[in-house]
């Protein structure tokens, strides 16, 4: 029940923001902030439930209520360690996204926070839904408010970016809907029990070819979200045109729903089919790592550059998932968390720079370290995180993934490792263009304010803690090794 409350708090908080913002815009901001903080507190409180649970490897919260019983749709939500981590990430980045919109959004404040909170509600719904219909429902809920965030508060090319984002993800969603329906009917015909329930459908017997097609339906939706090269083209446009909070949510959370979907649905539903497609997926993952990094290196738009680094980093996720190695799988979870934090931080930094300089073009920046020493320090920290420097969380993630993948696929793993060199190249280029050299900007720029300091401090501390004390995360997702029969220690 507590999970339903979390979503309801977000939904009603969103409506409240919309209603109050006309008269009291400041109050709306505070409502939005407190809503997400309340959810964060609940998610933290869930730790106690988690620890009290004797077998801390499985679903420790499971709630089911009837919704449309005649067609087998129920309101089924459940939480295991993996989902719990993702919820924590969602609310953590949610709080920061509200904070970084504090000054940036000046018009239609109420509707803005409504969209932000509803999008967060959709994302958290995706992470806990255990009914495929409910999952699809939440999948769409997170998409539409995000579309509005981009199209209303975005930058110059916001319409193009928003439509592109919408069409890409919608094509994927529709294929997934078809796949869900196919699974529903096959299962119904076999057992006579028509249900959308996750655990009900889990062991549907399908023959090889059918399983493959249905799997591709799911995989396509998730591959677009992740994104997998060559379906990544919506990402740089959407990320660069979205407002800062939008980019933060897109990079930090929306991409992760793709990874989550593959781990939660594709692998357990279609074990054989996913093994048969694994080499192709690893190939695409490696392609993404290299291709994304090459593109990131050449960009002159700061947010676009960061967006392409996401493509590169998400390639690691794909490689990790389809290596079917327990270590790699834990690396994937680490990558999901740490990429959310580090790339989120870079987007927040880009937002701060844009607020001050009114440009995203790095050729017009330079020498900003002199006037913004604190932001420069933070930038070094997070570009180094992005380049996989040990002691920061991303290293653990990429190390696990590459090490895990090496046992089964040494060649691909080695090529993926070359991505580390490329990541150094684009990271250093970014630092150099923005912070090094002679200061070219003539307008006086201020270093970070207290609000910005809080955002950056929270992100910095969490990335260092994840890098030095990753064990709690690893323990939480230990059970993922049982998710797929061919995952081995």
């Amino acid at each position, binding site marked *: 029940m507590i999970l339903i409350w979390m979503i309801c708090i977000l939904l009603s908080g969103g409506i409240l923001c919309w209603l109050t913002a006309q008269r009291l815009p400041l109050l709306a901001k505070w409502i939005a902030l407190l809503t997400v903080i309340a959810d964060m507190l609940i998610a933290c409180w869930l730790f106690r439930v988690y620890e009290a649970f004797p077998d801390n490897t499985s679903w420790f919260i499971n709630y089911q209520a009837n919704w449309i019983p005649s067609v087998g749709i129920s309101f089924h939500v459940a939480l295991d360690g993996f989902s719990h981590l993702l919820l924590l990430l969602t609310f953590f980045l949610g709080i920061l996204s509200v904070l970084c919109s504090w000054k940036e959004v000046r018009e239609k404040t109420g509707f803005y926070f409504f969209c932000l909170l509803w999008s967060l509600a959709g994302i958290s719904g995706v992470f806990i839904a255990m009914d495929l219909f409910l999952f699809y429902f939440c999948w769409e809920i997170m998409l539409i408010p995000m579309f509005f965030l981009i199209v209303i508060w975005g930058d110059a090319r916001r319409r193009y970016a928003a439509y592109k984002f919408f069409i890409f993800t919608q094509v994927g969603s529709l294929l997934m809907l078809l796949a869900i329906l196919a699974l529903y009917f096959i299962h119904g015909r076999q057992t006579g029990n028509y249900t959308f329930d996750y655990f009900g459908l889990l062991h549907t017997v399908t023959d090889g070819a059918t399983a493959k097609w249905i799997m591709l339906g799911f995989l396509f939706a998730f591959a677009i979200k992740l994104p997998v090269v060559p379906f990544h083209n919506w990402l740089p446009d959407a990320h660069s045109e979205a407002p800062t909070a939008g980019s933060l949510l897109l990079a930090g959370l929306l991409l992760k729903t793709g990874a989550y979907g593959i781990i939660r649905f594709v692998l357990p539903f279609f074990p054989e089919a996913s093994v048969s497609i694994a080499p192709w997926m690893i190939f695409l993952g490696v392609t993404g790592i290299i291709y994304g990094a090459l593109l990131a290196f050449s960009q002159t738009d700061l947010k676009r550059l960061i967006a392409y680094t996401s493509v590169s980093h998400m390639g690691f996720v794909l490689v990790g998932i389809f290596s079917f190695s327990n*270590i790699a799988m834990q690396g994937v979870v680490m990558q999901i968390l740490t990429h959310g934090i580090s790339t989120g931080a870079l987007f927040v930094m880009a937002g701060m720079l844009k607020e001050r300089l009114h440009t995203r073009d790095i050729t017009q920046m330079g*020498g900003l370290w002199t006037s913004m020493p604190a932001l420069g320090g933070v930038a070094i920290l997070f570009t180094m995180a992005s380049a996989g420097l040990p002691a920061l969380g991303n290293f653990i993630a990429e190390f696990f993934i590459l*090490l895990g993948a090496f046992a089964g696929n040494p060649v691909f793993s080695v090529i993926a*490792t070359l991505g*580390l*060199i490329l990541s*150094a190249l684009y990271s250093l280029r970014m630092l150099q263009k923005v912070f090094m050299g002679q200061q070219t900007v003539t307008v006086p720029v201020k270093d970070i304010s207290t609000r910005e300091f809080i955002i950056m401090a929270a992100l910095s501390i969490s990335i260092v803690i994840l890098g*030095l*004390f990753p*064990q709690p995360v690893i323990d939480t997702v230990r059970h993922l090794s049982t998710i797929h029969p061919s995952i081995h220690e």
Partner: protein
Amino acid sequence: MEQYLYLIPALPLIGFLVLSLAGKYLSRNFIAGIGAGSVCVSALITIILGVRFLQSPPGTVYTQLLWHWFLTGHLSADLSLRIDALSLIFICIITFIGALIHIYSIAFMRNDRDYARFFASMNLFVCAMLLLVMADNLVLLYLGWEGVGLCSYLLIGFWYETPANYRAANKAFVITRIGDTAMIIGLFLIFKELGTLYIPDILIQSTQHFNSGSATITLIALLLLSGGIGKSAQLPLQTWLPDAMAGPSPVSALIHAATMVTAGVYLISRMHTIFELSPLAMHVTAVIGAVTLFMAGCSAMVQTDIKRVLAYSTISQIGYMFLAMGVGAWSAAIFHFFTHAFFKALLFLAAGAVIETLHHEHNIFKMGGLRKEMPVIYYTFTIGAAALAALPLVTAGFFSKDQILWYAWSAGGGHPALWALALSGAFITAFYSTRLILVVFWGDMKTTPGHLPSGIMTVPLIILAFFSIAGGWIEWPHNLLHISLFSEQVQQVLPVTQLKPHLPEEIVFQLIAVVVSLFGIYTGYALYYRQSELMTLWRQSANVMTVRNFLLNGWRFDQLYDTLLVRPFLFITRINKSDVTDKLYTGIADIHLQLNKLFSFFQNGSLRWYVAGVLIGILFIITLQLLL
């Protein structure tokens, strides 16, 4: 004592944290106190630890577990420190020389705007290097390894406003990253084969798991070697080091003497079992060392920038260490690291003092006549240069280099060709050391000196000069004196050097080495002090000048990489800036737009068009009916 091990890296780390977070609120004296103080206290703890260690029975190992880093399946790594004789030597050098460099920097950097940032990065550098040598598993070692890379980036590009500086910083980071990537692939391979990354386990298990000379162990050894080559600036990844002197002089001293470039030497000697299992990797190490020492030495002969001369000499001296390790003379390599640290730190700090006094003049041919003006610097620098040139018996450099020359021929992996290269390197080193002294300190004064360095800068120089002389006396050649304090310690960890049978007398080699060094010194004296006519003749000859420029540019490796790698890379990224796959989707969108245009052309509101359409439709259906 074991429970205080963590303090050695933790103190510089605390220094870093305090200075980087609160640096702008602190006074300069306080910053200097924290920055230099933290490393000095670390050095004191190390000395106490070292004394205890010497008193304890041979083979003692200190360990301290800080916390479990991660554990999943078989893969585990802890933040755990381990000190044996080998790491202790490195820790001593890092903290002791690091402390002296920090003290020197208090005065050297006094007027810099970013005083706190400087000391913060220096402290982090020391901390990372300490973690590297104290790590008990390869993941923690890699943490220190990458940390060193980051700090070198921060410090080489310390004056980030000048393009040359941040380019040098980028270059250092990227080139060492290439080596690091090879190394981490080596880690994956070790884990795949042995299922552990804990260093003592790897060393024990590799002898049981692998046959000597098997392909896998050779591959592992070569991958680790590539990591070492990157950090230690050996061929073919040496090009970052000459540019790295863009940073402040104390940074160069730290990079060249105490940290960074010696990391490769540490890695190889730490993983010596793996290398010993692979004769091929050992040969490769020796050959790379020998070729590097010769090539870098040649480049050092013609440089005009005082710090570039020293930079190339570092590459060359590290080459000696690689050569020694490659032939199996482990303790000689470590001994050369030990003595080299003192005189190279001394040379860089003294060079920094000269450069500061001469208003940031780097060109040695615009210096000169400083012998009388700055006597302390002159004498200390001369001692450093003499040690570099391996002046017999009175300098530390002699004792270590003599061993390497001897083993290059006589040790198990030795070869006359390696010895010949090493010997010609000895001549070259002696030559350019002499050249440096004569051009910088003798002759006519060309630039008037400004403020002379203060006491806080000269005291570290004097201490280092003392060790550049006395540091060698703890290990004598066997045929001269039976003092081998150093190798006794090292051989607790590293294997004893095996000699070939039927060798000539060691004294013959020593005499040859001495003669060659002295001849190098004389050549330098003849060419640069007596201003021989040969020089003017060479200056006019086009061929000689071509060779000179070739060497001046470091055998044109930069140009080679620029053509082979950098430009193709830039070209590929430039032409694909707007992402070629996007064409596919814009193509789909365009097709739809075209179709839209086509169909909207028919829907034009003109009744005649519609009637015609209906008629064509009817005709079509009727025809179908008739035909079918």
